[in-house]
């Protein structure tokens, strides 16, 4: 799309080839960026430009990660953390969707609750974590609750915005075809808001993991956040980085799955230009 709009007069037959070429160049450039950053880090650590004690080095991180995975000792913690994040994602998303829908569709509820939603959203979430630990204990529940407090608002605001932005005339038209409010939601509001809902969902994945890890960091007896906290306690920088890399990979994998789902559900959309999405 972008190529076509940029040079409409240029010979169109060339466009696909050029686009393919561009994609190859992009991939190559991406790999190069990774090599420079990781390689530079490794090199700087070896030359002790960066103090390996505080910065560790990629080869050590990789070695530790392999050790963790081979021995399987990290898997139990990973399952706990991902489980907490998943719980937070599920509950937060359901609550966010329902609230977003209700407030977007009912001016009365909107007027009543909007200030409170804004107020709650303004509360710094990190302050809530200790309170949740008190309320829900050191187990998984407090981490899920903390994750929900992060996920909910993202999904809520995106759903609200998505439903509010639905084309008025589409709503009128489907009403005239005989839809009641439930049918309207199914045939118009949800599909129309879906792009917004998904972008909220994808941001939420990261937040749900953050919720779990920060919760574990503050007080827990297992989970990746706990492992990171332990490593930090003994100045094991390699352990901290290994934990971070592990979490990033997990978030990346989940994001790919959600992106697949999104592409499937939004397949009716005309081809979009590239942006912040894995391709």
């Amino acid at each position, binding site marked *: 799309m972008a190529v076509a709009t940029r040079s409409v007069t240029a010979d169109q037959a060339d466009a696909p080839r050029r686009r393919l070429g561009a994609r190859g160049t992009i991939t190559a450039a991406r790999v190069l960026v990774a090599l420079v950053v990781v390689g530079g880090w490794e090199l700087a650590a070896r030359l002790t430009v960066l103090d390996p004690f505080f910065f560790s080095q990629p080869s050590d991180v990789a070695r530790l990660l392999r050790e963790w995975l081979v021995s399987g000792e990290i898997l139990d913690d990973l399952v706990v953390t991902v489980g907490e994040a998943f719980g937070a994602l599920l509950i937060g998303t359901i609550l966010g969707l329902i609230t977003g829908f209700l407030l977007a569709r009912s001016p009365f509820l909107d007027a009543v609750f909007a200030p409170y939603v804004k107020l709650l959203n303004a509360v710094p979430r990190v302050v809530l974590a200790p309170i949740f630990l008190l309320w829900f204990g050191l187990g998984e529940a407090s981490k899920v609750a903390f994750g929900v407090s992060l996920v909910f608002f993202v999904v809520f605001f995106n759903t609200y915005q998505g439903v509010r932005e639905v084309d008025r005339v589409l709503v009128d038209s489907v009403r005239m*075809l005989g839809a009641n409010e439930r049918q309207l939601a199914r045939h118009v509001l949800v599909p129309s808001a879906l792009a917004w809902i998904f972008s909220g969902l994808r941001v939420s994945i990261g937040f749900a993991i953050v919720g779990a890890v920060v919760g574990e960091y503050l007080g827990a007896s297992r989970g990746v956040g706990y492992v990171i906290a332990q490593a930090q306690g003994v100045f094991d920088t390699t352990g901290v980085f290994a934990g971070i890399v592990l979490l990033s990979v997990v978030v990346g994998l989940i994001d790919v799955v959600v992106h697949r789902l999104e592409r499937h559900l939004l397949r*009716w959309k005309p081809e979009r230009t590239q942006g912040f999405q894995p391709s």
Partner: protein
Amino acid sequence: MMVGRPLVELDNVTVAYRAGDRQHVAVTDVNLEVSRGAFVSVVGPTGCGKSTVLNVVAGLLAPTSGGVRIDGTSLWGRNTRAGYLFQQDTLLPWKTVLENVCLGLELAGVDRAERREQARDWLSRVGLSGFEDAHPHQLSGGMRKRTAVAQVCVCGPEILLMDEPFSALDAQTRQLMENELLTLWTEAGTTVLFVTHDLDEAVSLSDEIVLFSAGPASTVARRYEVDLPRPRDLMRIRTARRFGELYEAVWSDLRKEVMKAHGRRDTVGHG
């Protein structure tokens, strides 16, 4: 024309839109009756409030004062007896052409096989067989409009509100669609309220033409009975002498209203 109580009645309908902290009176004291089975066209300068009036009859817009009666009962909320072909694009982009055309029947609970058969039938009537699985963004503007015609007509509404349905079509397709509309109207006895910019179209299709005055605060300026014999052959009717007379009569009045509309816009622009 059939006699009897009018199916659609507008009683001193006034619509004022809020424009910032002021009011913009779009139409005022509109009185109109449409008999059951009649084909009535609405013409008038752009921005005079034709779409506004259709929205009121559809029950999507409550008049600021005055009221609408359908078959003698006051209209409150959506007009369930009307199908509405909007001036804007209204196909759902996430549904295929076939799914879009099926929608009204689906909402009414018609079973899948039945509604698909009827939808396919209508798609072929508007010349879109073979495009069942396309999405709206893959169609041309005219094809989207024809799909919308099928979407509304397949539900068999008693009252058909159409807002410039054919203005995006080329002359040939347009005539085919006009013919199809006349056939539907004759067979099903539908009552049609038809907004158009094209006087040719208005004269050749209608029983009556309603001319709206220039806005703001537009109202019914004049009504013309179109006494051309039915059934009409759209290919030939335009050459009839009576056609020319009617066309001239409406055009001379419409032109005055259009000039007025332009004049007002100019004074607004310069003042």
